[in-house]
């Protein structure tokens, strides 16, 4: 097969957290679906769970090749030169090992107490102010930003600056190409400044570890060092910050599941996994190029052809999940692919899990009767961004008398 008559993709503008029904038809009838993303050449879209894992995990699919091509993408910006998504193993492994230890489950567990302190302080402030509160600005954003700033060693006071830059980088349509390139430049200059600072005053934060890996062991280049800092900062907060309100919104729409969770907060870790499966955060993955012919369930991808996957569609694959459109917090089926698969499987997955667990349990424990302050119509959904989520979410709760 060759990629002809591609469908424009994404199929539709994101509609809150609903999945376009076309994904289901395509997963069943057109497992290799020709699509045209807003930028780059036409690609195959892959939606079946096993196929998605093959594309993301099999070494016959390459990210490095994408850098040499006009890769299909939802955003204009292609990422900073030297960022970890530009490499295949073994080059990718060299970079990933510089930071991997900081993100193991064991190391992340050590950060849980601190994340809980931050979450409690934010909720203290919400309670002191009294309802209603904007869950996004009062809680969902500052929690992951504070955690990633402390881990990386980025001053929290600078957050308004890097948040603007990061918004621009994540934007699909909200910023012009010139603005996006300018923001990318400013963000990497900012990171380069922090790196220079570490050289003068060594620190034992992650940026310090990265600088030592470069200066003492020559394990990465200066470009790779800066791109890694930017990548961790950007990827480390926008996704988690979007998922906290997405999860709360989803639970409010499923009152029975919410009641179950309230009655037994020990279910929170399982609930986070099911919500990760259920909530379609992004529209498509970064593209992979086949470096040889590969047979997927729906046909052969030829060497040189690009493929994008929908992890959201894979997470609703009926051959893997029974009644996938049902939210079932105690579901015990296959693992979701919301953090990807294979060598690029989310570096921050354990951190994100821990933050999402802390966020949900803290909100449910400390804000009894948590619900929307207004109506559905008052919610402001993000537009023109690669990740779905709420710009603003006013909530209320039963304040203690």
């Amino acid at each position, binding site marked *: 097969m060759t990629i002809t008559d591609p469908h424009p993709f994404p199929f539709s503008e994101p509609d809150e957290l609903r999945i376009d029904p076309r994904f289901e038809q395509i997963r069943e009838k057109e497992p290799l679906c020709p699509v045209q993303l807003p930028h780059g050449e036409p690609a195959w879209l892959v939606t079946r769970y096993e196929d998605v*894992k093959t594309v993301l995990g099999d070494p016959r699919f390459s990210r490095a090749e994408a850098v040499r091509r006009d890769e299909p993408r939802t955003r204009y910006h292609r990422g900073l030169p030297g960022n970890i998504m530009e490499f295949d193993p073994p080059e990718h492994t060299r970079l990933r090992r510089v930071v991997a230890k900081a993100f193991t489950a064991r190391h992340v567990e050590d950060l849980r107490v601190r994340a809980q302190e931050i979450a409690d302080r934010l909720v203290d402030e919400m309670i002191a102010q009294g309802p209603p509160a904007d869950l996004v600005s009062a809680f969902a954003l500052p929690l992951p930003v504070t955690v990633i700033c402390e881990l990386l060693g980025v001053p929290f006071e600078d957050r308004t600056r890097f948040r603007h830059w990061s918004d621009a980088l994540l934007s699909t349509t909200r910023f012009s190409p010139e603005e996006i390139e300018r923001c990318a430049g400013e963000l990497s200059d900012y990171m380069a400044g922090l790196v220079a600072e570490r050289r003068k005053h060594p620190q034992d934060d992650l940026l310090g570890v990265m600088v030592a890996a470069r200066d003492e062991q020559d394990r990465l280049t200066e470009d790779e060092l800066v791109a890694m800092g930017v990548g961790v900062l950007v990827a480390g907060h926008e996704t988690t910050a979007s998922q906290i309100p997405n999860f709360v919104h989803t639970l409010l729409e499923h009152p029975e599941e919410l009641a179950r969770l309230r009655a037994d907060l020990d279910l929170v870790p399982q609930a986070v996994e099911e919500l990760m499966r259920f909530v379609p955060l992004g529209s498509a993955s970064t593209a992979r190029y086949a470096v040889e012919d590969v047979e997927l369930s729906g046909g052969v991808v030829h060497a040189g052809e690009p493929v994008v996957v929908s992890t959201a569609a894979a997470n609703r694959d009926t051959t893997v999940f029974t009644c996938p459109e049902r939210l079932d917090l105690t579901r015990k089926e296959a693992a979701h692919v919301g953090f990807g698969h294979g060598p690029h499987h989310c570096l921050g997955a354990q951190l994100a899990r821990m933050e999402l667990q802390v966020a949900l349990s803290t909100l449910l424990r400390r804000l009894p009767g948590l619900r929307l302050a207004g109506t559905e119509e008052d919610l402001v959904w993000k537009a023109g961004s690669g990740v779905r989520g709420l710009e603003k979410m006013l909530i209320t709760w039963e304040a203690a008398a």
Partner: protein
Amino acid sequence: MSGADREVPAASPAPGTRTEIWRVRVDPKACMGTGICAGVAPDRFQVRDGISHPTAAYVPPEDQVVDAAESCPLEAIRVTHRDTGALIAPEE
């Protein structure tokens, strides 16, 4: 953090000894099936039904096995000396 300056356990045979063999294990309870190991060392790990399996329990010393063990976010892979049982990776 670094693997480059990993200390060689005292009990290990002299470097370059031809007979040196490593043992590779995956703890199925810890493994979450991320597929990272199989991406790093496709000849040495396969993920089936959401769990990684070493393709061979005993392997000659090679960097890719250490890389896989050091890249596993759950530290589910253990690489030891077959004869002495000394831990090669991951770093504790």
